[in-house]
């Protein structure tokens, strides 16, 4: 049965891969140059934990796999998936204007997030709830922008996790600039104090000029930055074939830094590869590009209807590659976690979801004046006048009782 399952899973895996352009040409070894040093990227998809939960360790990306480590990653993924589902539900119930689901990408995000050190900086796109979790951002802080009470609730400077960036590609250049600053600050080289930056973007984003320029600048200034592309096979309704003829990780070679394709549904591989990449950056061999080969299991956002453009067998096939199931199988089959553990995590997840929901509903609508704050750091009489204008206007209605709207 396991063997059989593993067999079918392999076929499914192949099928899923065929269904995705990432592999229109299967990855082959190729040479790239990082700084002055040559590095050979792994031939094909880096995997450490197979979809069937078998542990295969990898020569280039060694990882000390302790039960605690795997339990922790499992917990991370389960909790993140749980509040992600709750986000969807809250939107359906009218409590959120929008939710951007990460379902299916928990492995790619937790692996990368847990590879980071406290001083490292991350620049997300808009789907990185899992990375936010790893950076210590409270999940309820993600609710603000989707409920329309702000454009970013957490303090990106303190969390070392930038606010979500909606304009595709913009954040890559900002990340490279930040990493240049880390280098200028002398934060590269020293094993203890070294810092690095990681930026997240999707397969579709690779077509944007900003992502290209980000790679050009990163290479030109030897920036300690990891370009972490989550290739979830889709840019809304467009399959990755629309963006590229060849695997995305190959872009790296044309800029002269390493590009690695990792099984994005294998949290251990994502952890090991991202750790390696961040270390490369910290020791001055940046940049590095990682393509996490994964799949967007849910809609693009709660406004999207995937049935219009992709059929369910593709999704079904990818279900068998689930990032959480394989970890659960590994823990269970090897007796590294018992029912109590799994139940405990489940209970914790439900608590988190409940708190997530309640906090969402209780979120206060900000004062209209918020509109004028932090537009500028320094005084601005013109805005003050407009603010006064608005206050007078609103006050007028306060007196007369009601405010009517279109």
């Amino acid at each position, binding site marked *: 049965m396991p063997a059989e399952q593993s067999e079918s899973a392999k076929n499914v895996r192949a099928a899923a891969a065929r269904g995705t352009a990432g592999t229109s040409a299967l990855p082959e070894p190729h040479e790239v140059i990082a700084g002055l040093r040559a590095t050979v990227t792994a031939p094909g998809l880096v995997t450490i934990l197979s979809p069937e939960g078998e542990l295969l360790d990898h020569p280039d990306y060694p990882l000390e796999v302790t039960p605690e480590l795997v339990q922790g990653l499992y917990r991370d993924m389960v909790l993140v998936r749980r509040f992600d589902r709750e986000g969807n539900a809250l939107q359906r119930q009218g409590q959120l204007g929008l939710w951007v689901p990460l379902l299916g990408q928990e492995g790619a995000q937790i692996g990368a997030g847990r590879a980071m050190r406290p001083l490292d900086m991350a620049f997300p796109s808009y789907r990185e709830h899992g990375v936010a979790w790893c950076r210590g951002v409270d999940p309820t802080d993600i609710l603000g922008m989707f409920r329309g009470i702000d454009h970013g609730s957490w303090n990106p400077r303190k969390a070392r996790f930038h606010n979500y960036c909606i304009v595709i590609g913009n954040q890559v250049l900002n990340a490279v600039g930040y990493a240049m600053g880390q280098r200028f600050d002398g934060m590269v080289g020293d094993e203890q104090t070294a810092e690095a930056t990681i930026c997240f973007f999707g397969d579709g984003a690779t077509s944007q000029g900003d992502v290209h320029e980000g790679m050009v600048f990163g290479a030109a200034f030897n920036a300690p930055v990891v370009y972490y592309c989550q290739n979830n096979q889709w840019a*809304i*309704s467009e399959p990755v074939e629309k963006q590229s003829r060849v695997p995305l990780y190959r872009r790296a070679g044309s800029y002269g830094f390493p590009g690695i394709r990792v099984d994005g549904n294998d949290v251990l591989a994502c952890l090991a590869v991202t750790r390696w990449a961040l270390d490369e950056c910290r020791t001055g061999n940046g940049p590095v590009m990682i393509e996490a080969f994964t799949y967007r299991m849910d809609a693009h956002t709660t406004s999207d209807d995937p049935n219009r453009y992709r059929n369910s067998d593709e999704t079904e096939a990818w279900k068998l590659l689930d990032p959480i199931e394989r970890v659960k199988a590994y823990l269970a089959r090897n007796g590294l976690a018992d029912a109590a553990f799994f139940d405990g995590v489940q209970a914790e997840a439900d608590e988190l979801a409940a708190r997530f929901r309640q906090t969402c509903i209780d979120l206060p609508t*900000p004062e*209209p004046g918020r509109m004028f704050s932090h537009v500028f750091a320094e005084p601005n009489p013109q*805005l003050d006048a407009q*603010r006064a204008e608005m206050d007078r*206007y609103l006050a007028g209605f306060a007196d007369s009782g009601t405010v009517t709207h*279109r």
Partner: protein
Amino acid sequence: MTMMTVAKALNLALRQSMEDDAKVLIMGEDVGKLGGVFRITDGLQKDFGEHRVMDTPLAESGIVGTAVGLAMRGYRPVVEIQFDGFVFPGFDQIVSQVAKISFRSQGAWKVPLVIRIPFGGGIGAVEHHSESPESFFCHIAGIRVVACSNPSDAYHLLRQAITSDDPVVFFEPKRRYWEKGEVESASHQGDYFTTRLRRPGTDCTVVTYGPSVAVVLAAADAAAAEGRSLEVLDLRSLSPLDLNPVVESVRRTGHLVVVSEAPRESSITSEVAARVTEEAFYSLQAPVIRVAGYDTPYPPSRLEEEYLPNLDRVLEAVDRSMRY
């Protein structure tokens, strides 16, 4: 005459334009199978094929820049920008090529290109999805800028934009996509790139366009109830402006209020105020008053009702003008 939504009218205009002229192409992100995030291109790829309705890579400069080349080759690309906030990566191609190629080539090339942009707020969206960037385009010499406010204009303005030999940036009031109205869909003729009288009145002229037209018409109703008669004009063509009807109206009313969601500073509302004052100086009994977005980034959606011009702000402005 058939009733349809703004979205349907746009879809119909695209369909008929493609039927009438094999050179008309549609390009953009998710315009194919998905039919665009607002479904404006719904069904068109199925009926006209992947060569005429193209899902493009995710890059706006690429979309606009390749559309320019297709236009040079004799095609009439209709480009969809997914949301107002995402046109800026394509801004350079619009400023430096779209707007200048005819002038540079002394007319050897025409650029019959339409850039469709859903614009404006009021839909409870996240950042970058509710902006009103039309003023940037009004300041670019060499392109036309139009905005529709109802199904009939959506249909006729888009058909005219597609047949125009000049590049046209076409703004669609996204929060009105699902509002219904009558459309003379038999065929298109006549010039719709003109200011249109929406409601005659005698006391105060109110000029607007796009999503705010409905707001201003509602305000006019409310004013009428209070015995005040507002004349409502819909610009439709934001650049070049068709100001004669506005000036003529102001000569009669002596009062002008300009309404737009766009930030106020150096905007189309500034231009309308400046031009009308130049041309109707002695008729104006009060300065032109503008009801516009504030000079802040578009706020979180829970605050957008305070940000957007609404019925009350329009009426308050009319009061100020009349009391002046």
